[in-house]
Structure formats: structure tokens, C-alpha cells
């Protein structure tokens, strides 16, 4: 998994490319934690390049979501691919992680 982080004035975008699995999930969590530590508490996870996620990856996202909310921000997901959408539905996480079409639209209008 390659991880890209981009910061914008209103939010930050984390883009994991490839497979989010048990061996790499901690890196995703650390990337979001580092943003929150720097005060970037509004985070978009751009999943357009993620074709696979397992339960460790989901755990990392839920942990990051909770950390962002505790810091007064939020974590939102954007550009979700079909394989990832299926896993979110199977685990009922689509109820707490609402999809946004693009990273740009995730925090638009709050």
C-alpha cells in the first residue's frame, strides 16, 4: 500500500493506494494520527485507489474516525470502490461512514 497525504486549508486528504491489510493498516492509522496531532482534524480518506480492505483496515479507519471526532473534527470517506463498498455493507460500517463522491465534496456544506 502506498500512502499519500495532502493538506488543504479546510481539510486533509489521505489516499491509500493498493491493499489495506493487517500488515499495513497501522501505517494508515499513524498517518491520520499525525495529521490530528498537527491540528488537521478534518480528514478525508480518498479510497479511489483501494481495491481491497480487510478487517484490520476497517479497524484502523474506525480508530481514526474516533480519534478525529475526539479532537473535534471528523473523518469522511470518498470515492469508494465496489469491493470496499461491499465490505462496508457486510460489516454495517456504511451506517457510520457515509460515502462522498469526491474528496472535494466530503466537507462541502459540512
Amino acid at each position, binding site marked *: 500500500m502506498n500512502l499519500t497525504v495532502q493538506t488543504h486549508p479546510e481539510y486533509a486528504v489521505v489516499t491509500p493506494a493498493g491493499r489495506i*491489510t*493487517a500488515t499495513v493498516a497501522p501505517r494508515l492509522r499513524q498517518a491520520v494520527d499525525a495529521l490530528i496531532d498537527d491540528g488537521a482534524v478534518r480528514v478525508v480518506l480518498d479510497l479511489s485507489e483501494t481495491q*481491497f480492505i*480487510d478487517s484490520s483496515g476497517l479497524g*484502523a479507519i474506525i480508530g481514526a474516525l474516533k480519534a478525529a471526532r475526539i479532537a473535534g473534527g471528523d473523518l469522511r470517506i470518498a470515492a469508494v470502490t465496489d469491493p470496499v463498498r*461491499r465490505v462496508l455493507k*457486510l*460489516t*454495517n460500517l456504511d451506517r*457510520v461512514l457515509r460515502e462522498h463522491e469526491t474528496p472535494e465534496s466530503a466537507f462541502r456544506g459540512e
Partner: protein
Amino acid sequence: MESDGSRRLRGVADERFLEQVHHLLADIGEEVRGAPGYTAEDDEALGLFELAVAEIAANVVEHAETRNGVPVHVDFTVRAADGLFEAIFTDDAIFAPPTLDGVHMPDVEAESGRGLALAAAVLDELVHHPVEAGAGNHWELRRRR
């Protein structure tokens, strides 16, 4: 590749093994996706099968690490046959209950505990039993396509 078209991995049940399982899954995925007559339904079945294999592989490695520093060995076989995806794991760790009875999806706020529930949900057949009395773990995973 084995004579029946299956792929096999043997080694110590550690993070490296987990990565090798993912590489093998990616190889098989590429092979299957390139075959004539491959459908969108096949693709969904393959994706969910890969997920189940990843979850069981992670479970094997997680329990292997609790064995007082003694390396646990695991034997993994995976194959894409006509109408079926199948994987088998056999390790020499202490048999790790709980069994699959009563596995359920945890609350949405949980940060762990979804692995077995996910595997059970996406497979047509998931079997887990000791290799012999109280010793070793044998897993069989099957998903129709």
C-alpha cells in the same frame, strides 16, 4: 504450482507469511481475471474469497505469535477450480478456540473482532477443527463462483 493447478506456501506463520499469502492471492486473481468468460459475478466471488483468506491467514498468524516464542509452521494451499475457489490452512500451533459457533459481527464502533465474522459471512463453507486432539488448526474455505 501443484499438479492440480493449486498454489502452495509453507513456512513460519509470521508477517512475512501474511504478505506472501497476499502476493499469491494477487497472482491467482490476475490469472483468473484474465480467463475467457470471466464475469462480474466471478469478480465479486473472487474478491470476497480473497477477503476470507486474508482474514483466516491473519487469524493463523495472530494465534501463532502467542506460542512462547516457538515458531509455528503453516501449510497453505489455494486453488481456483471450475465453479469453486478453495483454500486450506494447516498449522502446528495449539488449537485455538473459540470455534466458529456463535461468531457474530461486533458493534460498528469496535476496532477489532470482525475477521472471523466476515470470513463466515462471505464463504459458502468455513471449517475449523484441530489437526489432532487439542493440537494444530485445520481450516477449509470454499466459495462457489
